[in-house]
C-alpha cells in the first residue's frame, strides 16, 4: 500500500466517522455512535492486518496483534460507557470502562514502541518529533488558559478524572516525543504527522469533554466525541504507514539478502531434513536445467546425486545432524542434470542453527575434473613411456656388455695395453648405465598400482632388509640397530626398498670405523614418523632439498658409486604412502632421515 492510496482510505474513514454519528436520531445516536466509532476503525485495522499479513514478519504480526487487542479494549470501554449513557444516567467515568481505556492505551503504546524500534533505521523523525513537542506544549498552555474555569469546579471530581486523562494524553505525546529525540533519527513526516494529529485530537477531546461535563452541556455526538473519533481515525493511517514503512523496509532488506543469494555465483539451494528442495538460485537452475516450479517443494536434492555418491552423502548428513555439529562439511559427488548430463561437483553443506534447514553450495568441478583426468592420463603415459624406454634400453645394453666381455675374454691377447684398458672402461660404463636404467625402471614402477597394501610388521621388514644386504653390511663392519617398530599398512616391497636405500646410504656415506644405523619411530595420531639415523659424513644444509631429486649426487661417482636415484625412489615411495620426507644433518656427525606414512591410507581407488 503506498502513501497516496493510504491517505485516500484514511480520509474516507475520517469523513464517515465525523458524519455518521450526526446522521443518527438523537435517541440512538449516543449508543451507536460509541459503538461505531470503534467498530469502524477496528474493522479497518483488521482488514489492514489481513492485507499486511502478506508482507510482514512474525514479529510484525505480534505488534499488530497487540494493536487489535488495544482496539478491543477500547471498544469494550466505549460499549460500557455507551450503555451507561443510554440508560440516561450520566456516569462518564466508570471504573470498568476506565480499566479498559488504560489497557487500550498501554497496548497501543507497546505496539507503537516495538513497531518503531524495528522500523527506526529506515525512518527520519527529527522534524516530526520537534513539531509534536511544540504541539504538546501548546496543548498544555491552552489547558492552562481554561484553568480558572476548572478551578471553580475542581471539587466535583469530574475535573480530577479529566486531569487524569489529560496527563495520560500528554504521556502518550511525550513518551513518543522522547522516543524520537532519544533516537534522533527516523521517520517519514507523514507517519508521525498522523500520530501527532491523533494525539492532539484525543487531547482536545478529553479537554472539551471535561469542560462540557462540568458545565452540564455534554451530550453524545457533540464536539468531544467527534474529536475522539478523529483521534482514533488518525491512528489508522499512522499505523498503516508505520506498518507499511516497516514492511517496505523489511522488504528492502529481504530483497538485498535475496539478491545476495541470487548472485553468489555458486549454485546454492536450501533443503529441509528430508532433502526436499525449498529454495534455489538461478545458478542452480542453470546448472541443473530445472525451472523453479518443477523442483521447489517437489524434488529431493539427494535424488540428483549420483547413485554411488548418494548413500554416503546422505549418511554423512544424518550423522552430522545427529551429533549436532554446525560445522559445514564438503564432499565431492557427481550430480545429474535434468537432461541426464553428469557434473562433478564439490558440495558444501551448511547447517542453519536451530532449524532443520541446510544450505547446499555447489561448485562445478567438471572442467577441472576433465583436466585432472587428462593430467592423470598424461602422467600414466609418461610413466609407461619411462617404463618402456628403460625396458627397451636394457636389451642393447646387455648386448654391449656381452660383446665387450667376449672381446675381452677372447681377444685380450691380440690387443695392446690401451686396448684392454678401453675395453675395461667400456664394460664399466655399460654397467653404470644398466644400473641407471634399472633405477629408472624402479622409479617408474613405484607409480604403478601393482603392489597391494598389507599389514606389515616393520621389525620383520627391517630383518629381511638386513638379510638381503648382509654382505654389504658385513664388508663395511656396519651395525644396524632398530627399536621396537609398529605394524602398518604399506606396500611391503616398496617399503623394503625405502629402508634398503636409506640403510645403504647411511653405511656408504660413512667414514666411521663402525658405521651405525639406528632406526626408530614416533607414533602420531594419523601417521607414523620413522627415522633412519647414521653416524656418517653428513649433508651440507644447502643440499637438503636437492638430494631428493633424480640423479642428484653430492659426491663423485668414482668415490661412493651409485646413480643418484636412490633417494628419489625413496621419496616417490613415501609420497605413494601419502607421507612426507625430510632430513636433519650435521656435517661430520651424521644424518637422520625422517619420513612419515599415513596410518589409514590404503592406496587410491
Amino acid at each position, binding site marked *: 500500500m503506498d502513501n497516496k492510496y493510504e491517505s485516500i482510505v484514511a480520509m474516507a474513514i475520517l469523513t464517515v466517522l465525523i458524519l455518521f454519528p450526526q446522521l443518527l436520531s438523537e435517541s440512538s445516536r449516543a449508543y451507536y455512535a460509541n459503538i461505531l466509532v470503534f467498530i469502524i476503525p477496528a474493522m479497518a485495522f483488521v482488514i489492514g492486518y489481513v492485507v499486511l499479513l502478506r508482507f510482514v514478519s512474525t514479529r510484525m504480526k505480534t505488534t499488530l496483534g497487540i494493536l487489535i487487542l488495544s482496539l478491543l479494549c477500547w471498544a469494550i470501554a466505549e460499549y460500557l460507557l455507551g450503555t451507561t449513557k443510554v440508560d440516561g444516567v450520566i456516569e462518564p467515568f466508570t471504573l470498568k470502562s476506565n480499566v479498559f481505556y488504560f489497557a487500550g492505551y498501554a497496548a497501543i503504546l507497546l505496539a507503537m514502541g516495538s513497531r518503531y524500534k524495528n522500523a527506526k533505521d529506515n525512518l527520519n523523525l527529527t522534524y516530526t518529533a520537534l513539531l509534536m513537542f511544540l504541539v504538546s506544549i501548546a496543548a498544555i498552555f491552552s489547558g492552562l488558559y481554561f484553568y480558572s474555569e476548572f478551578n471553580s469546579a475542581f471539587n466535583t471530581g469530574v475535573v480530577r478524572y479529566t486531569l487524569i486523562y489529560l496527563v495520560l494524553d500528554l504521556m502518550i505525546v511525550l513518551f513518543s516525543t522522547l522516543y524520537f529525540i532519544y533516537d534522533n533519527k527516523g521517520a517519514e513526516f507523514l507517519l508521525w504527522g498522523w500520530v501527532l494529529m491523533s494525539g492532539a485530537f484525543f487531547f482536545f477531546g478529553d479537554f472539551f469533554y471535561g469542560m462540557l461535563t462540568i458545565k452540564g452541556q455534554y451530550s453524545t455526538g457533540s464536539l468531544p466525541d467527534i474529536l475522539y473519533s478523529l483521534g482514533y481515525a488518525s491512528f489508522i493511517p499512522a499505523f498503516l504507514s508505520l506498518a507499511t514503512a516497516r514492511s517496505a523496509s523489511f522488504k528492502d532488506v529481504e530483497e538485498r539478502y535475496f539478491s545476495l543469494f541470487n548472485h553468489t555465483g555458486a549454485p546454492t539451494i536450501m533443503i529441509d531434513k528430508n532433502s526436499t528442495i525449498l529454495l534455489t538460485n538461478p545458478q542452480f537452475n542453470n546448472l541443473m536445467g530445472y525451472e523453479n516450479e518443477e523442483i521447489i517443494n517437489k524434488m529431493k536434492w539427494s535424488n540428483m546425486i549420483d547413485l554411488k555418491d548418494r548413500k554416503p552423502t546422505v549418511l554423512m548428513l544424518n550423522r552430522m545432524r545427529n551429533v549436532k555439529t554446525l560445522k559445514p562439511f564438503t564432499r565431492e559427488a557427481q550430480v545429474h542434470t535434468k537432461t541426464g548430463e553428469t557434473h562433478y561437483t564439490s558440495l558444501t553443506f551448511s547447517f542453519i542453527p536451530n532449524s532443520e534447514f541446510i544450505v547446499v553450495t555447489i561448485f562445478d568441478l567438471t572442467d577441472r575434473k576433465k583436466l585432472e583426468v587428462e593430467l592423470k592420463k598424461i602422467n600414466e603415459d609418461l610413466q609407461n613411456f619411462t617404463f618402456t624406454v628403460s*625396458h627397451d634400453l*636394457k*636389451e642393447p*645394453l*646387455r*648386448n654391449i*656388455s*656381452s*660383446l*665387450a*666381455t*667376449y672381446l675381452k675374454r677372447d681377444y685380450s691377447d691380440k690387443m695392446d695395453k690401451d686396448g684392454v684398458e678401453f675395453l675395461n672402461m667400456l664394460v664399466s660404463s655399460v*654397467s653404470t648405465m*644398466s644400473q641407471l*636404467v*634399472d633405477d629408472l625402471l624402479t622409479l617408474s614402477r613405484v607409480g604403478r598400482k*601393482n603392489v597391494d597394501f598389507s599389514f606389515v610388521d616393520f621389525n620383520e621388514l627391517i630383518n629381511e632388509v638386513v638379510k638381503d644386504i648382509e654382505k654389504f653390511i658385513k664388508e663395511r663392519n656396519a651395525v644396524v640397530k632398530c627399536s621396537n617398530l609398529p605394524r602398518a599398512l604399506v606396500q611391503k616391497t616398496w617399503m623394503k626398498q625405502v629402508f634398503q636405500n636409506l640403510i645403504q646410504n647411511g653405511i656408504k656415506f660413512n667414514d666411521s670405523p663402525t658405521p651405525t644405523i639406528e632406526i626408530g619411530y614416533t607414533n602420531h595420531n594419523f601417521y607414523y614418523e620413522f627415522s633412519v639415523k647414521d653416524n656418517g659424513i653428513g649433508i651440507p644444509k644447502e643440499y637438503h632439498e636437492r638430494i631428493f631429486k633424480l640423479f642428484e649426487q653430492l659426491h663423485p661417482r668414482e668415490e661412493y658409486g651409485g646413480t643418484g636415484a636412490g633417494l628419489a625412489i625413496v621419496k616417490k615411495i613415501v609420497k605413494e604412502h601419502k607421507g612426507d620426507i625430510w632430513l636433519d644433518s650435521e656435517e661430520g656427525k651424521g644424518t637422520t632421515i625422517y619420513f612419515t606414512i599415513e596410518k589409514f591410507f590404503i592406496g587410491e581407488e
Partner: protein
Amino acid sequence: MTKRGVLVIEDNITDGLVIRRTLSKYIDEEINVVRDGTEALSFLAKVLKGSLDSEMMLPRLITLDLNMPKMNGFEFIERFKKNDQTKDIPIIVLTSSQLPDEIKRAYSLGANSYVVKPTDHEKFEQTIEVIYGYWFDFSKLPPE
C-alpha cells in the same frame, strides 16, 4: 623320435649368441638358434617330416623369447603345446619382460618356466648356466 639338443628362439642376435655360447660350454649337442616363432615352427615341421639333409632331431629343451617379430612367443607356445609330437618338450621363456600379465599368460598357455634376462652380461651368463644346471643336470627331461 629321439630328441637331442636345444632350440633357441630369439630375435636378438647377440642374446642368441650368448645363449648358444654359454650352453655349448656344457652340452655337446646341437644348439639351433632361430629368429622368431614362424621360423621355429617351420624348423620343427621339417624335422618331423625328416626333410632336413642332416640328421636333425627334435630338441630336448626350448628357450623362447616373447617379443619377437612375425610370430611372438605366446602364439608359439600355444601352437607348440597343441601338437602331440612336441607338447612334452619343456619351454623355458627367457625374456626381458617381467609384466605380471605376461608371466601369467605364458604359464597358462603351457610354458614350463619363466626366466627374466638380467641386464648385466655376467648375470645373464650365470642365468643361462643355472638353466642348464636345473634342466639338464638336476631334472629328468622326457626320455629320448
